[in-house]
């Protein structure tokens, strides 16, 4: 056994990302790792490379336990990872990028530039990449950068190579070349951990496949003994949580209607959708399918270059967030720490940030009304805080999210877009967020919810739109949606 991970557990706050996962890899093997978004694949990889310290569990390489793991340490042991987003230094040359991790010696040593370029040239040649080692790495295309990363890993005499969705941005030709490289590495005795959403390619390249779900390793099978359909059901199959209190309310008129919405720069293509009053429309899809980009286009962050947006029947032009707010569209973004709340400001200021003009007369803030309003929202949403004057950064994740939601509910929107509203918050806070959504839907709000959690989508939404590559590929009613069918649509496996 080349690499063995035993009982790896990792919690982020209240969220259990990995619940005692074991995983092994033989020399000369390609072991694929599959699972839906948030299943724990990335966390497992980060634990293996030492980027994240596990709460429990141990890792053995060649029978020896790795202690005090760190990215530097794991690399020196011959463990290298190539991520979907290449981690290159864009202003350094290709040769320098490769040398940076592979050359040994102190910072004060004399650099042999000719040898450095020559080494890079040989490594690139070994993987059949036609890249000038003296080019600035930032000028390379994404696939070329990936090849540089692989060359980098080879240079370190890699024993374990981790490829995280390497083919996601590759053309067919480049994928073929990658497979050749992988096959060669395998024949040389290296072990390869291969993460991919393209299930059909696994049969070609993988020896074994492990399915992760909700931070647990579900099964490990021989690649030859499994089909993509089986994998999809293994990835998705699980009981619906009973926490979700979705209350069905009678639907009203169409509130938001979108036709042919495109933003080429953001990667949103020809989106049509409709949301009624009281309805919760879920948007499912893999990371990178264009869900957040769609929300940002609706909200005017990346204005649309084609298509129509109608709110309650009247067409609105959304060129920036101000236009969207004026049209009654509200958007609670995904990354609440960076985009949702303003950590330095007190809770009350966060609640009123989007309605300052309404709260002011002659540009002076009505602080009395602000306090009343903030107190009201803190009570209504059950926000746990030391008071409305406490800085928002002092609240827990779930309560920060409620503050972010309160800001947008305070604008009295007609359409509320929520992007991953319960990501990274604990179970209790999650249930409360769901309750709030149901309450608001019952009051006639039209809600669009983006979520990577199929459970949440299935539990909360009246209808689900599935996105892939910037398109809505299908819209499914709640009664007809299953985790499997949604995942198959998101992956492009319609059978």
């Amino acid at each position: 056994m080349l690499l063995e991970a035993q009982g790896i557990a990792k919690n982020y706050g209240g969220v259990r990302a990995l619940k005692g996962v074991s995983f092994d890899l033989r020399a000369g093997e390609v072991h694929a790792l599959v699972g839906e978004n948030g299943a724990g694949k990335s966390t497992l990889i980060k634990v293996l490379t030492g980027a994240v310290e596990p709460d429990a569990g141990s890792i053995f390489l060649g029978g020896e336990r790795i202690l005090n793991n760190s990215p530097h340490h794991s690399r020196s042991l011959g463990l290298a990872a190539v991520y979907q987003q290449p981690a290159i230094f864009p202003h350094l040359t290709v040769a320098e990028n490769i040398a940076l991790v592979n050359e040994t010696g102190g910072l004060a040593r004399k650099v042999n530039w000719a040898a450095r370029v020559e080494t890079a040239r040989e490594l690139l040649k070994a993987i059949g990449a036609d890249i000038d080692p003296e080019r600035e790495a930032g000028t390379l295309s994404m696939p070329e950068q990936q090849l540089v990363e692989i060359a980098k890993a080879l240079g370190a005499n890699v024993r374990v190579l981790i490829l995280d969705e390497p083919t996601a941005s590759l053309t067919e030709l480049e994928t073929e070349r990658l497979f050749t490289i992988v096959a060669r590495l395998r024949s040389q005795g290296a072990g390869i951990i291969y993460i991919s959403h393209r299930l059909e390619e696994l049969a070609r390249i993988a020896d074994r496949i492990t399915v992760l779900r909700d931070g647990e390793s579900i099964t490990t099978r021989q690649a030859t003994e499994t089909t993509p359909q089986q994998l999809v059901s293994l990835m998705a199959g699980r009981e619906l949580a009973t926490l979700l209190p979705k209350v069905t309310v009678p639907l009203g008129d169409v509130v938001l209607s979108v036709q042919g919405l495109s933003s080429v720069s953001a990667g949103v293509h020809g989106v049509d959708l409709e949301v009624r009053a009281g309805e919760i429309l879920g948007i499912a899809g893999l990371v990178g399918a264009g869900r957040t980009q769609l929300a940002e286009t609706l909200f005017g962050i990346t204005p649309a270059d084609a298509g129509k947006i109608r709110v309650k029947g009247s067409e609105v032009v959304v060129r920036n967030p101000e236009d969207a707010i004026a049209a009654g569209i509200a958007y609670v973004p995904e990354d609440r720490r960076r985009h949702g709340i303003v950590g330095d400001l007190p809770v009350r200021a966060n609640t009123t940030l989007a309605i300052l003009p309404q709260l002011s007369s002659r540009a002076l803030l009505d602080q009395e009304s602000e306090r009343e309003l903030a107190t009201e929202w803190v009570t209504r949403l059950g926000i746990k805080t030391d008071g409305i004057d406490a800085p928002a950064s002092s609240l827990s994740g779930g309560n920060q999210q409620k503050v972010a939601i309160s800001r947008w509910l305070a604008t009295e929107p007609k359409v509320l877009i929520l992007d991953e509203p319960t990501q990274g918050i604990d179970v209790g806070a999650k249930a409360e967020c769901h309750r709030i959504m149901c309450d608001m839907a019952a009051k006639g709000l039209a809600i669009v919810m983006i979520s990577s959690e199929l459970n949440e989508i299935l539990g909360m939404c009246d209808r689900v739109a599935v996105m892939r590559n910037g398109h809505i590929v299908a819209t499914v009613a709640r009664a007809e949606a299953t985790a499997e069918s949604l995942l198959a649509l998101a992956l492009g496996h319609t059978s």
Partner: protein
Amino acid sequence: MRQRATAIAIFWAVLVAVLAFRAPAFFEFANLRDIAVVNAPALLVAIGMTLVILAGEIDVSVGSQFAVASVVAGTLAKAGVPLPLTALLTALAGACFGALNGALVSWLGVPSIVATLAAMAFCRELLRWVTQGAWVEGLPADFQWMGLSQPHGELAILLLAATIFAAFAWTLRHSQAGRAVYAVGSSRESARLAGLPVGGITLAVFILMGVLTALAGVLDSVRFSQVQSSAGAGLELKAISAVVIGGAAITGGRGTLWGTLLGASVLAVIAPALTFLGINAFWEKAIQGAIILGAIVLDRLSARRSGSGDKHAG
């Protein structure tokens, strides 16, 4: 903030104790009044700097702006323009200067440290070239001391500075715009998503910075019969120091004008206190540096203790 006020209060208490023992003459009314008058212009600049820093930017060109404003004010006064009009025109010049910085930062996205560094060098050199290094001399008597007798002039300067301070402190706390400045400095992206005009606010703080610096230039030049073209050298450091000592986060979003007032007061008394204590004035900069360093270390320590050390970073 409360902690910062405590730290500054302790500094003052020690200073007062030492001075009371070694040089009681320091506390004579005339001396304290002189210190206040001399530092009033720097306070105006520090007010503007507080706004700029709260909005998450920085302006290192205030020294040059101050010099340009002083020379403009002096030249206008010499040409016989009445004082109120001189002040108004100078403020307008300052607004243009600030608008230039602001436009570079908010429209072209030039980092403020770079934009204002360029402006600092450019304007200083331009001024040197235009004036050929000559001072503006022989200012009319009715320009000096605001055309008043000396004591009245001093009173006018102090009142003006106090009024401007109070107006800004109040507005920053009670207006929609003040709230927006904090929001933009704390999280540009959140502010943009909340529909705030981030670019406009950035532009506005730079314009206010320019106007306040220009007024500071006027207040300073009325005290003398000539204007040096090298006026305002090092002013940017003094203003930024006052803001930082006053407890504002250099990354924006946190701080108050009252803190800046405390910071400015600390910086203002160092040099005269040294003189009174008979210590070589060369130590002033070293002590200033030590105080700034102390303030920042105090910040990091308290942030670490409350376990939010990195939450506010960046």
